[in-house]
């Protein structure tokens, strides 16, 4: 899932200081699961903002709504009649949701309440680890199911580099060397031949905004509202 971390309160509070009516919009999917921007977090943040603004003698009128997914037009539609009462929107969704919200309500300033940090797995309660950089060029079949783009600090396709350190990465003893792990796993599977050949320079597909249209579907001529 997509994981995110709430921004420091000071930063959020500062972004909103000139607005007196703010709608805080949570997202009920990824950021809710990773405890960053779901319904509960909307309530907590609103309580903090309310308190801080009162203490600053700059009271704010806060609204709170959490939609199922901010990356889906269908769910944003339920905000259409709500936003008119506010002069700013705070979004607790990932970067995708924040932008989609801003696109839907172009006349109202939209501010991010979280920093989106990637595509991650859940390792424990409140503990997430990145696993994918969505490069559009998956090599996991060759690398034993371990992503060299994400898990190698240099994103090397032909590792390990000189920084491999007894199974750890040079950047941190706690961080495993991805290429050490790739080697170990492929060796165990008897598949070292997968990495004997040089992987040629990659065609970076994630340098422009990507659009995905699944087979059998097509882009709509107009953007539905």
């Amino acid at each position, binding site marked *: 899932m997509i994981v995110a971390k709430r921004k420091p309160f000071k930063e959020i509070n500062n972004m909103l200081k000139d607005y007196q009516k703010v709608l805080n919009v949570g997202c009920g999917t990824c950021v809710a699961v990773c405890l960053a921007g779901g319904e509960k977090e909307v309530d907590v943040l609103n309580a903090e903002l309310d308190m801080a603004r009162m203490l600053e003698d700059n009271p704010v009128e806060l609204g709170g709504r959490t939609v199922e997914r901010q990356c889906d037009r269908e769910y944003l539609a339920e905000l259409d009649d709500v936003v008119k009462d506010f002069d700013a929107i705070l979004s607790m969704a990932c970067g995708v949701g924040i932008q989609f919200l801003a696109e839907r309500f172009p006349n109202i300033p939209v501010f991010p309440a979280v920093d989106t940090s990637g595509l991650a797995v859940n390792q424990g309660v409140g503990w997430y680890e990145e696993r994918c950089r969505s490069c559009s060029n998956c090599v996991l079949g060759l690398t034993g199911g371990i992503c060299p783009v994400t898990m190698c600090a240099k994103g090397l396709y032909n590792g390990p580099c000189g920084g*491999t350190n007894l199974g750890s990465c040079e950047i941190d003893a706690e961080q495993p060397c991805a290429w050490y792990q790739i080697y170990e796993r492929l060796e165990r599977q008897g598949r070292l031949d997968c990495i004997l050949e040089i992987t040629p320079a990659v065609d970076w597909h994630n340098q422009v905004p990507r659009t995905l249209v699944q087979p059998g579907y097509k882009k709509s001529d107009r953007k539905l509202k």
Partner: protein
Amino acid sequence: MKSGSNLEKVLRAGHFAFTAELDPPRGTSAGEVRAKASYLKGNVDAVNITDNQSSVVRMSSWAASLILLQEGLEPNFQMVCRDRNRLAMQADILGAYAHGIRNMLCLSGDHQQFGDHPTTKGVFDIDSMQLISMVKGMRDEGKFMSGGHIEEPPRIFIGAAANPSAEPFNWRVYRLAKKVNAGVDFIQTQCIYNMDKFRKWIKQANDMGLTEKVYILAGVTPMKSVSMARQIKDEVPGMDVPDEIITRLQGVGEGKVADEGIKIACEQIEEFKEMEGVAGVHLMAIEWEHKVPQIAEMAKVLPRPRVD
């Protein structure tokens, strides 16, 4: 002859090569580069000019390389993948060659986190293996990575690194084989202290026929002090410093450690000269360029051969 560089000529003629290292300054002083170069002139076949080593900003490798050319020394222009994308790399290779640079060392580069700009964006558009392939393609096929034609291709003698000490040890020789397949001409190894491990690695390379296809320069760094030895052992990733070395340095008493470090390095060099598959030594006397003449003398690698 692939490049006609002095290093290539010396190696092709079967001489035991001896190369050194020079770190460009953290400033604009050409004088500093010239001063360091003065200790190396006549004592080495080529000089590796580091490229923002340890991810710290310094005078660029190609620029310091040009100063070396002016001084009558042959540079190994080092290029890391951390700071440039494939456009900038190819552009620099063309320019470097146009100015007379004939050797390159192709590296991934230390992670940016260790340097003076730890929050910069590491580029790593391509990795060291792909960089080797790219330079070979430019030289032998006259083509850019894109396939585009190069007018007067750069004839570069292609170098790369290998670390025989790092884990997983069994993969090390295969990684060397990959670099050979990518098109590397010479290898500078990481500093060697564990000679037993190195012998195993070079034997594997010999057995796989790799040393017939690539010249291996064994990396030697003399220890200046016991603390340096400990630091390399404990803090430099992938390094293997046996306890005997530290014990030996400790045993000689104050004021004599540096000399003992040089003595150990010279003993290593003597061993490398006799070792099948080793074509020379790359001396990395870190910030110790002025000691190179003495080490070269003691290691009996002088005078350096002249090959036309």
